[in-house]
């Protein structure tokens, strides 16, 4: 393993890595535009130039491999002059329309200019006119004048999405990134080009002009769009449901690097599938009076729900209650459900899956057919089986009270069965067929509004963190369940994390940055 010196600090790294990565391990961030660790090397922006002893000219640190006894200087006057020169070149044709650019605030032209530029412009010529602000796909806008031709997007479409929509056309200062003839940037991973674009050339159509990035807060989360468990960051505006954004709090979703799961990428379904967090939410508890659902207090709703459950337990026993959990619930939620309904109340009519839900498409990269984030966790905790048998029992009157988490039973057959059920408690986040048909509706929270863990299809347990307060009167699901337990006469005092620790023998903290594989215990029978 070669040992080299970077800015006077010695470091030993594995052979073959580029100097830019070795520097990163020392906490030295070398500015770059074209370099991206997930893509092939272009070496074209010339921003990452460094001084290497015994080399006649500056070398690009993305392409130069480490060597034993190499001496690298990343911040000499010579280097700073070269970086300023490259910035001056890049900005010479740039429109400098930062005040109306979405990238403003997270733009590497701005960032590096503040660090290495700060010159007075010498450019007195007319800039080359190129195409501005036109959609190149369902999610992405291209502004060729802002583009610095780093070709990250081109390489992404060649190497990662393998869809080859983008290329560099023309030559010299007339070079532009553009779609090839008859193509649109319409692949399942198209949104990633927005993230890797270091400037404002590729912007997100959904996010355009919605919010300045400096008003956004960030929270680490896990995508709930499928069982892959891609690591994401929720970018949200916590203080206000802005007028322009139509009441949205979560403004966008960005991938978060996890080498074991999604690397730097997420699919478009995950990226743009966050609207359920702020739209069509069940914001208050409801109870059915006569034939209508009416808003109620939590006290009334929980009273009615517990009364129904108690009644069924008294008249029929545990057989009179059915529980349909959801693979959208966190491990912690499910552990509490199990504790209350299975361990305390002895209920055995349990189900997990909605057999009427069509599986999604799947590919050989990130997207999994199972569109739920925690099927694996639910199964390991002990929930399985599909809901049809339970719904049938409810329709036949054998089950008196049906407690449904999240699932919207909207298929004709399911809706008919549900319609025949005596008493339905719905516990979820969005209005759907089950909620509309319920007798009590308990508004829970989305993964953006609570802490917890999901277990991915490959058994990796990963944490997500609370970004937002529960919407309106919605409450944390564990709080709801514990309150309900109290009303049923069971004083359960346990937090979600405690339940998790009992289950896995691990704290949330111990899961680490990239999650951890599940202990190999066999799924326990509920």
């Amino acid at each position, binding site marked *: 393993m070669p040992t080299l010196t970077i800015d006077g600090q010695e470091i030993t790294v594995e052979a073959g890595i580029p100097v830019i990565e070795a520097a990163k391990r020392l906490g030295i961030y070398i500015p770059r535009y074209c370099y991206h660790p997930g893509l092939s090397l272009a070496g074209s922006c010339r921003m990452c130039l460094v001084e290497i002893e015994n080399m006649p*000219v500056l070398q690009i640190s993305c392409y130069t491999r480490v060597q034993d006894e190499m001496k690298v200087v990343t911040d000499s006057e010579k280097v700073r002059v070269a970086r300023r020169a490259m910035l001056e070149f890049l900005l010479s044709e740039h429109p400098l329309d930062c005040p109306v650019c979405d990238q403003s605030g997270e733009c590497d032209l701005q960032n590096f200019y503040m660090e290495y530029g700060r010159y007075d412009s010498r450019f007195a010529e007319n800039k080359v006119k190129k195409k501005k602000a036109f959609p190149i796909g369902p999610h992405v806008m291209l502004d060729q004048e802002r583009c610095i031709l780093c070709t990250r997007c081109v390489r992404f479409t060649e190497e990662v999405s393998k869809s080859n929509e983008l290329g560099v056309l*023309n030559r*010299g200062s007339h070079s532009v990134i553009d779609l090839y003839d008859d193509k649109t940037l319409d692949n399942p991973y198209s949104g990633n080009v927005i993230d890797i674009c270091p400037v404002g050339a590729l912007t997100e159509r959904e996010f355009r002009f919605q919010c300045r990035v400096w008003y956004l807060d960030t929270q680490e989360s896990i995508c709930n769009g499928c069982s892959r468990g891609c690591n994401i960051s929720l970018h949200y505006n916590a203080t206000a449901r802005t007028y322009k954004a139509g009441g949205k709090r979560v403004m966008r979703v960005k991938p978060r690097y996890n080498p074991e799961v999604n690397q730097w990428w997420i699919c478009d379904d995950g990226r743009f599938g966050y609207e359920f967090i702020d739209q069509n939410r069940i914001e208050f508890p409801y109870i059915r009076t006569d034939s209508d659902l009416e808003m109620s207090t939590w006290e009334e709703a929980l009273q009615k729900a517990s009364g129904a459950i108690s009644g069924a337990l008294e008249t029929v026993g545990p057989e009179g209650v059915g529980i349909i959990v959801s693979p959208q619930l966190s491990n912690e939620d499910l552990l509490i459900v199990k504790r209350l309904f299975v361990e305390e109340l002895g209920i055995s009519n349990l189900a997990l899956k909605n057999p009427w839900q069509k599986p999604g498409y799947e590919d050989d990269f990130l997207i999994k057919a199972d569109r739920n984030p925690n099927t694996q966790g639910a199964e390991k905790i002990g929930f399985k089986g599909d809901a049809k048998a339970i719904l049938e029992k409810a329709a036949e009157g054998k089950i008196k009270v049906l407690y449904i988490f999240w699932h919207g039973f909207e298929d004709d057959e399911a809706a008919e069965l549900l319609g025949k059920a005596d008493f339905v408690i719905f516990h979820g986040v969005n209005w759907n067929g089950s909620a509309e048909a319920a007798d009590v509706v308990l508004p829970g929270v989305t993964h953006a509004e609570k802490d917890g863990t999901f277990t991915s299809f490959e058994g990796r347990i990963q944490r997500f963190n609370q970004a937002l307060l529960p919407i309106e009167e919605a409450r944390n699901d564990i709080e709801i369940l514990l309150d309900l337990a109290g009303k049923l006469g069971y004083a359960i005092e346990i937090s979600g994390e405690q339940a998790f620790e009992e289950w896995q023998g691990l704290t949330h903290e111990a899961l680490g940055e990239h999650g951890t594989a599940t202990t190999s215990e066999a799924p326990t029978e509920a």
Partner: protein
Amino acid sequence: MPIVKILSEFFGNEQARDLQWRLKHGGYEAARKAFREMQPDEVTQEVIKANLRGLGGAGFPTGRKWTFVPKDSDKPTYLAVNCDEAEPGTFKDRYIVEWDPHRLIEGIIICSYAVAIHTAYVYIRGEYVRPYERLQKAIDEAYEAGILGKNVLGNNFQLDVFTHRGAGAYICGEETGLLESLEGKKGWPRLKPPFPALVGAFGCPTVINNVETLSHLPKIIEKGGQWFADLGVERSGGTRLFALSGCVNKPGVYELPAGTPFRELIYEHGGGILDGKELKAIIPGGTSAAVLSADQVDLPMDFDTLAKVKSMAGSGAVIIMDEDVCMVKALHNIQNFFAHESCGQCTPCREGTSWVYRILSRIVEGKGSPSDVETLRGLNQNMSGTSICALCEGASMALGSFLEKFGDEFDYYAKYGRSYVEDARKGAVAV
């Protein structure tokens, strides 16, 4: 000593491109000799001994370049013949291909034998229609005569030669830009290393040689490396073709020993400066080379000498400027070319060449200001040593040398909005 004509022996001879005539006049004898009498390594050694340098412009020792090709590779080795002659002022390769294409083909055979190559691609610039037609005809004839193909000259050695026409980009003459283009991609130069000798065309080891370089091989094999080396100067053997153009009475291609002084080329062979005017400047090796002033006219034209004065022998394209040439307008013209031909891949070249050209355009239109010259000097510094390939370096070499040697003309034009040279001719220089 009479000047030895190697490459230009048959220039102007209409019969020389005919295979049958050429066979009667020494054609393919050297290749036969190599097959008959020499081991491949001996051919390489002879070329090393000859001090043959890459005559496309870079001047890298040809024999040594061949030795970089790995001997134990499980991949095929290719030969890419650079006939994308596009450096402004250069028009020598076309003479070879137009008048004596079989000399090039014989050179290709000798190189292929030495390096164990069985496929050669001739990348020929798209605008070269007649050269292409003549070369293709010669290749076809050679196949028919069994000179190319499965058994080259009756030996157990296969060699296929393909022509590939460019689509009109200077950058495709850069060797890795050429390879990309040959592979059907956009002609963007590659990052190096690896060099083409290890990873070249289609990911395989590749020798890239210029037309003129390869065309020297038959004579080297015929007469021996030492004979060739003795024709030239130390470390640069043989003759080379100088493409003389500009303000001279007899522009054209002249074959002279490496190291001949400019004065001899211009005054003895080129018939002196047009209209008996004074020599002002010499571009010694294509427009990428730093311009020389008139007092450098006695310098010998070889790679090492010109490198020492921070210019280069380059492609042997010698452009002569007389006292009436406005250096601002000349540089404007040159930078127009680089801005137009920059491939756009790396930042300093894409932005720099175009910026420089636009500043010069403004000055030439009379809309400059004194600070523009300062900006040009600054940009020149920033373009030097920062790019992927030599295009930007060439643009910068031209820019820097013009400013260094003729800075006053630029200051004058930028300040007064008029050409100093034109004002001087009219006797109206501003004071």
